[in-house]
């Protein structure tokens, strides 16, 4: 098992190096040189320009610049935000809990509902339940989620007034920021209504972000279940006279879930893409909105650092899923 994990770790090293290369090249590929980009509309005198180029090391050969960049990364230097003058890593860390909270809620919702719907559809194959769930899943899978978010806001926020339109918590609620996770902090504060305010703000963004993963997981669970239900050992279990429920939940589900775990892992990347849209629409102060704001503000060091940090995070999650997959499926491990 240890060898399997080490093997996986070695395999991701080239990808990791590639990600740093992409992030490094991003600023160099932008039209105009970095100093002119930073100066923006104001312009900069030729002397000051040369001085700044030297200060940031842009006059060095490219390989030297890359080496310095990676050297900085290893010491936790991801650059500075041009607009707030704070380190990119600090800015990322202050926003990441918001995204993580939203993403975790979304993936939990998508997994629980998706697996349940997939099993139900597979067991009732061809029936109206199957057709209904799979039809709904296909609609969810085809949904432009930014539009879906607007529809939900129109219905639940502006028409019915059940949920707030934006933000993480009511402006009336004040409590100390302990973990960065609203659900936990609001509970810790012990203030009446704080937790419910946080939950209320989470509902619509979670539904929006969960929509596509939910559809994908439901479809994948159904087809994995159908495949397993056709296996001979299921027939054996059935012919031994085991209760159908026991066969489905104990014998079939365990094996059907193996490919589903991979699917859930792959959804993390989808979630990060979806977070950009969801957070923008609901003014959710997370990493996705931060990236969009930084792109439109031309705060390119933030875009560079954010791109790198998000990709590394997705990579770590995928690695974890890979290892988990090896744990639950010995056939992969010993190959």
């Amino acid at each position, binding site marked *: 098992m240890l060898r399997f994990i080490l093997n996986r770790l070695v395999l991701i090293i*080239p*990808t990791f190096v*590639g*990600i740093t*290369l*992409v992030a490094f090249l*991003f600023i160099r*590929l*932008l*039209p105009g040189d970095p100093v002119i980009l930073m100066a923006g509309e104001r312009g900069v005198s030729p002397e000051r320009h040369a001085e700044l180029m030297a200060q940031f090391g842009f006059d060095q050969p490219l390989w030297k610049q890359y080496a310095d960049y990676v050297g900085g990364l290893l010491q936790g230097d991801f650059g500075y935000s041009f607009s707030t003058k704070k380190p990119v890593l600090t800015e990322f860390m202050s926003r990441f809990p918001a995204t993580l909270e939203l993403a975790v809620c979304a993936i939990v919702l998508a997994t629980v509902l998706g697996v349940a719907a997939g099993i139900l559809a597979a067991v009732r194959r061809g029936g109206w339940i199957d057709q209904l769930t799979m039809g709904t899943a*296909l*609609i969810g*899978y*085809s*949904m*432009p989620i*930014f*539009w*879906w978010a*607007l*529809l939900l*806001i*129109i219905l639940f926020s*502006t028409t019915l007034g059940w949920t707030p339109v934006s933000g993480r918590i009511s402006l009336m609620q004040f409590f100390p920021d302990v973990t960065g996770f609203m659900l936990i902090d609001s509970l810790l504060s012990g203030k009446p209504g704080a937790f419910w305010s946080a939950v209320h703000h989470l509902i619509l963004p979670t539904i929006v972000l969960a929509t596509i993963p939910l559809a994908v997981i439901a479809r994948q669970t159904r087809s994995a279940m159908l495949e397993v239900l056709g296996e001979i050992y299921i027939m054996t279990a059935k012919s031994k006279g085991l209760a159908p429920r026991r066969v489905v939940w104990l014998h079939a589900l365990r094996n059907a879930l193996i490919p589903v775990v991979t699917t859930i892992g792959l959804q993390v*990347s*989808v979630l*990060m*893409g*979806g977070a*950009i*849209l969801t957070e*923008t629409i609901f003014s959710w102060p997370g990493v996705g909105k931060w*990236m*969009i704001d930084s*792109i*439109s503000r031309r705060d*390119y060091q933030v*875009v560079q650092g954010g*791109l790198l940090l*998000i*990709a590394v995070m*997705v*990579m770590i999650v995928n690695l974890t899923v890979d290892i988990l997959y090896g744990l639950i499926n010995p056939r992969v491990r010993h190959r």
Partner: protein
Amino acid sequence: MSATDDPHIGTAEQEPLGPPPVAPWRENWRYFTSNRGAVLGLTVLGLMVLTAIFAPLIAPHETATQYRDALLAPPAWTANGRAEFLLGTDALGRDILSRLIYGARYSLAIGLVVVTLALISGILVGLVAGYCGGWVDALIMRVMDIILAFPSLLLALVLVAIIGPGLFNAMLAIAVVLQPHFARLTRGAVMAEKSREYVTSAKVAGAGHLRLMLVTILPNCLGPLIVQATLSFSNAILDAAALGFLGMGAQPPTPEWGTMLAEAREFITSAWWVVTMPGVAILITVLAINLIGDGLRDTLDPKLKRS
């Protein structure tokens, strides 16, 4: 369609007895059309294509004409609706239906261009990787891994930030992001086919590398690629609409559906029709294409075929 030269269907030839063999494409077509969803999807997509082609004939108004007396007019069937604006007008008094009809051109063109670019480049890269193997394969596949390590919408956004916002640049960026899927699929299929007897026999008969790659091997890998192309078509439309919505794709006043939604966002409380209609158009188009994709997958994947 050469796609139907599926090797799995060729087994019928080995059985001299039994019913006369059916042409593979005819069998696939029969199978595909037995799927009600797929037929529905194909019909809707066909209507969409006709709408796009004949947009100038169908659209009741010009897309840019601003009717100053009818700003934010609601749809015709509501109380204050006006018959000449069936789906209402937007904040500048432009007819929404006409803009949606012209928008079909953009969405279908986006899908077509993106899939063509991603498909061709992905197939070439995948063919070379799978056929050559060794360090070429390792290098190419690592590059693909790097592209896939980024969330696709984020990478597309960053690429657009580099090359500048606009519809064509957005299409290029989305093609780059979708391309690795084709490369991976092609590589996998080529590696599986490479060692088969028919390839060896072609090699023995003196076929060159290019002929082996493009004429001998490629046609037998097309099944999964066609399915992936269909899925990418709908993904491209969704991603382009998302980029348009974020202001990084088609720019106003282009009647692209995502861009229309971005313009409509501020009327979310006052004029629901401005927000609803473009999204319905995107959803219907993407849904139709996904229905076709599901049908194609069931048809072209022999494992799923009912016997």
